[in-house]
């Protein structure tokens, strides 16, 4: 067992424990934070596979942005555990069945020959000037350019839809026009009146 193996087992153990914690923890904030931990350890595993661009992007996008907003929503929820457990046993068979089906599907895929150790050897060490980022960009913009553009458009549509759903024009709300605020001059607001001094009675 060499150093890389130890790193791999340490990261994998943390990943599995924290992923279990995500579903087992009673406190949803702990769940969200454990999910962050599993993302970070996952990024560590990807670094071992020499996929440094994907690893850092995982941390940047999921840890740095998505989970922040997620954590945020979770913190504002007022969760009643007793209410949440209601009907647990009634729905247990359905949930169990779905879980079994998913486990079977994953097992079928993972035990296929295309995931065997011979098919997926450990990555070869790359020369120092090899840039993962450049390689990925080259593939994305040549071979997979249509799929890539399509995904981008899909995301844009989803974003516009989300904004359109929350947008509503309220009649009772006072809104500010910043351009008008900025362009206000002293003469528009202030009038200096010259008055003769008055005598105090």
């Amino acid at each position, binding site marked *: 067992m060499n*150093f890389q193996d130890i790193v791999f087992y340490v990261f994998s153990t943390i990943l599995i424990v924290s992923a279990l914690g995500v579903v087992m923890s009673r406190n949803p904030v702990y769940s969200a934070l454990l999910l962050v931990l599993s993302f970070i350890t996952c990024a560590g595993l990807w670094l071992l596979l020499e996929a440094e*661009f994907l690893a850092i*992007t995982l941390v940047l996008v999921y840890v*740095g942005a998505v989970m922040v907003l997620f954590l945020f929503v979770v913190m504002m929820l007022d969760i009643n555990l007793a209410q949440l457990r209601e009907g647990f046993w009634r729905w247990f068979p359905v949930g169990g069945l779905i879980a079994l089906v998913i486990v079977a599907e994953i097992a079928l895929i993972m035990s296929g020959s295309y995931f065997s150790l011979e098919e997926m050897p450990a990555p070869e060490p790359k020369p120092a000037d090899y840039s*993962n980022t450049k390689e990925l960009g080259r593939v994305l913009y040549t071979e997979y350019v249509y799929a890539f553009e399509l995904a981008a458009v899909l995301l844009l549509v989803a974003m516009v839809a989300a904004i359109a759903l929350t947008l509503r024009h309220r009649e009772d709300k006072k809104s500010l026009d910043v351009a008008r605020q900025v362009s206000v001059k002293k003469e528009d607001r202030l009038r200096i009146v010259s008055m003769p001094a008055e005598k105090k009675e």
Partner: protein
Amino acid sequence: MESIQQLFEQFFGLEWGFMLFTLVKNLAYIIAIAVPLLLGVAYLTFAERKIIAYMQIRVGPNRVTFFGIPWLRGWGQPIADAVKALMKEIVIPTGANKFLFIMAPILTIMPALAAWAVVPFSAELVLADINAGLLYILAMTSMGIYGVIIAGWASNSKYAFLGAMRSAAQVVSYELAMGFALVCVLMMSQSLNLGDIVNGQQGGSMLNWYLIPLFPMFLVYFISGVAETNRAPFDVAEGESEIVAGFHVDYSGMAFTVFFLAEYANMILVATLTAIMFLGGWLPPLDIAPFNMIPGFIWLLLKIAFLLFFFLWFRATFPRYRYDQIMRLGWKVFIPITLIWIVVLGLIMQLPESVRNDFPYHLWF
């Protein structure tokens, strides 16, 4: 260095000796970066108090000195403050979540220090010269927000939670503008490595620094940096006149000081990154005799100090932004500017060679 490596390899075998040697060597480097950094943080607080005091026609801290030397009056102040903070009790509120309450300051300072791993101090002086250095920095700085959110939630106080909410929304929005501004930098340098970015700005004088072709991006990046570090005029996360002290209202003693240290360490980090991306890093402003005799590290320090002065100047000058105005500036002003600039830059890069040479921009490509 090699004799120490051989010593390790004799004791622990060839493979393990090398691993342990690398570990010890890197730990020594980390200490060599972190200790001066924390000293810099301590004296940045002193500089802030002095500079703001002079701007407000006061004197600032002028009592604490070392060994009673009269002309060092005031210079002992940061050390005295640190000792005071160490002595104070850390009060944990009854309703707080104890584990997360203690974790929050640690989570705040961890990324602020970890980001320094890839920062180059001169052409050769860098701890980890990785390919995706810029991405690593972005990833680390984006993790700093967790400490603030967790602190706000774990304190179990409405003021703290309001501060955390404000801070989360603000940091996530300004990160976008910051990232897009950096995309322009890496379009020009064609590299994610910080050392390569500085080398791309080489060439005789400061006209080659990215500051000039990317001046709007420099402004966007630096202002977003001020917003990212929650400094005045973007310090609504603390907003002492509205929500007492925001996310750290319930913190005291060393736990509070760690938040404080992280804020200043982040300031130095943003100033360093701005110096590297836009002000030519360790390059002298003019590559002629008196300037290029000064070592590059000194130039980098001078640039960092120059940018840090702006942080302090902003704080002494500007009133606090209103919250909706912060959001407007981030989403409706900075992000459109950066997006348009990326498109313009891309178009210029796509021009045929002959046209680009006639274009005034040929200086920089």
